[in-house]
């Protein structure tokens, strides 16, 4: 699973993947080494070392957000920063487990740190997954590509054109439009079905139009075909709308918790140093 999410697909990410594997192995091995007889440093020293490492990983992951807001000619290539963000974030979780000794948190601040850390890492991994899955899925299975911010306007245009077509058609097409298509074309719709079937079962949903096509007169067949193309385009835009919304909204589950986590870590570091 984790390899599916994090495994490299390019030469650039392959290097980062190896760095991550080494880091994860060290994070898992360190607590075993720590418990071996004769190893110097008390528990406190090791815990502090893990704490410094996990805070460093957080800073690395956060730095990506700052780099994104810099001009194109900022330090380092952005794709390296992305890799550092993803693999550093995953390593953060390993180091966090070592830092806490895999013990249940105690106290409100510790719970806040754990929950926000898990939230940030899990939504981050989810973000990696959907960014690897959704764009290819949208481009491979749908006939249209559309910008997310244009979808409401385009759907409105589709609705108006459909209404004009229906108005120009015979009574049976008008009634069919009013009863079955008007609500479908009213605006962009989010449907979870697109997460499981990128087409949203469009063929079965258009079958009713195909059935009506056999019942209308010759003059309305052309309008009905055009209406069918509009409905199909609307369904595809709904697919785009749903999945592109996911691409944008997962950030609300990732970025705000990350900012909260940063503040909580700052408090934690202060508390450790002060107390």
């Amino acid at each position, binding site marked *: 699973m984790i390899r599916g999410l994090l495994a490299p697909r390019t030469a650039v990410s392959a290097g980062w993947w190896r760095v991550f594997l080494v880091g994860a192995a060290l994070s898992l091995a360190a607590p075993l080494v720590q*418990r071996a*007889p*004769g*190893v110097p440093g*008390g*528990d*406190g020293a090791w815990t502090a070392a893990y704490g410094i490492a996990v805070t460093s990983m957080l800073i690395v992951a956060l730095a990506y957000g700052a780099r994104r807001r810099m001009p194109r000619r900022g330090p380092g290539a952005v794709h390296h920063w992305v890799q550092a963000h993803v693999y550093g974030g995953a390593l953060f979780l390993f180091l966090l487990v070592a830092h806490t000794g895999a013990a249940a948190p*105690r*106290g*409100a*601040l*510790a719970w*806040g740190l754990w929950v926000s850390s898990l939230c940030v890492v899990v939504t981050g991994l989810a973000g990696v997954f959907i960014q690897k899955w959704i764009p290819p899925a949208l481009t491979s299975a749908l*006939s*249209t590509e*559309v*910008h997310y*911010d*244009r979808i409401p306007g*385009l759907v409105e*245009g*589709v609705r108006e054109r459909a209404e004009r077509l229906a108005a120009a058609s015979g009574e049976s097409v008008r009634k069919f439009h009013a009863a079955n298509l008007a609500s479908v074309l009213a605006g962009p719709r989010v449907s979870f079905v697109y997460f499981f079937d990128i087409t949203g079962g469009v063929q079965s949903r258009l079958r009713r139009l195909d059935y009506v096509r056999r019942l209308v007169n010759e003059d309305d067949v052309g309008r009905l075909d055009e209406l069918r*193309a*509009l409905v*199909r*385009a609307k369904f*595809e835009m709904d697919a785009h709308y749903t999945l592109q919304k996911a691409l944008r909204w997962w*950030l*609300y589950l990732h*970025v*705000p*918790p*990350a*900012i*909260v986590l*940063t*503040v*909580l870590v*700052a*408090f934690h570091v202060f*508390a450790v*140093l*002060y*107390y």
Partner: protein
Amino acid sequence: MADDSDRGSFGDARLPVSPGYVHPRNRNRIVWTGVALAALAGGLLAVDLGLGSGDLVANGPLSSAHAALDGRCAQCHTPFGGVRSSACSACHDRFGDAIGAYTFNAHYVYASRDRTRAFGRENEVACAACHGEHEGRGRDLRAAVSDARCASCHGIDGFHDGHPEFTFAAEAVPDDAGLAFTHIRHVDRVLDDRGGENVEAACLACHEATADARGFQPIRFETACADCHLAPHDESAELPVQPRRAPLVRASGDGVELTLGVETLGMVRARMGPGEGWAARMSAAGFEEDDGFVLKTGVVHADPWVLHNLRRLRRVIYPSRGLADLLATSADVARADEPELYEEALGALRDHADGLRGRDEDWVQAALLELDRSMGALERRLADPNTTLDDTRFRLNVRDPRLTDEQLTEIDLFAAEIAEPCTSCHTMERATIRRVRQEQQVLRRANFDHGAHVIQRGCLDCHTRIPFSDYLGADEPADPRLDDAAIQNVPAVAVCRQCHRPDAVSDSCVTCHDFHPDRGARLRLLP
């Protein structure tokens, strides 16, 4: 703005191509959402820290023992200084202890007996390093010390894996109690007298549990032995009286000439020297004198007349009188007073040596050298709880060089004759009845709770080195080698491991060991 038709269309539905650049919605909203949430969380923590109890920032509730300190962070925490051990000592050493009862130094001295570690060093391990707080009300700070803490210095993974064999078992240390005692014979006698076959009940006839049932009270002659030993009709051997004209020892050429005899009660009464007040209280009716010999009937335990005559013999062996004469006899001194008495004597010896320092005569320097060596040895002996304390320690242990080995043997034999009523139980060493060690010299660094064990296992389940069951009630007495007082009838570590193992009874370090020496042990550590 250009018309849609100017830029064409796409898809089967001929959707219009965008007339211009599509401005994405403001993405900063995500960041500001996060900032708002973070400000809320940070504000709550800051208010709690500044004005509240600090519970939100605290890493969990304090233990029950420290619950009174809730919300008083500064009581223990020093800003940017962590929890200093001095904050713990403020309460825990309130009643004062020169060595610092809870310091690492005390632990180190406890373990190593290297008293140079007791002073002038910073604590190497802070209290908080082992006693982690803020882990809940139910946390027992003494019992919750992880084995890893101990292993970091001691290099032992755990009791079941790596704990060395107990020293007495590994080195075959005998039970050097100073007694000639036969366990099987005594248990057999108790069973005969009381009837029944319950060996453990017979054990408890003499070994009386302490009030807390953790151990056993010291066995006292009066309660455990007097029923059978030293009855009123018991007599001493018929001993030659010291002739008035012939002293115990007399110079003769390069050597000495011995005339071994005892002083009668009348002789002591006539002199009544220091420490001889017992003679005035002792009845003369028990003595029978006839033809230069004396016999005492009704020898009592720690009989002053017997001990007095033994001390006379010791003066022959160790003629350097010195401090020894300040001490009455080892048996006269209450056990609890012994350390104080001997420390006082050692102090007097030190003063004497200090008075000699600075003089350059050869004999003074030689004497000082000998004194320093002897005082060093004496200090070590006093610090060693296993050492017998008696007045020979203050005679510098410098044997009269004029005495031949044959004369020493003669003295030893005469001493054994004087102490003949005593030697059926006590062992002797150079005209001295050895002090009986009431506490067993094993498992001294561990805590053992007999009460907790005896309700689950019998005495003989663990104390297996003396084969009681093979010989009790037998016609033939047990082989003396199997029923010897020197047999250390205490189990080896393997016996403990039968129950104390990871999947059974607790086997953590602190189950048996205290990091901090108890007060009794600390007394012995003080210089």
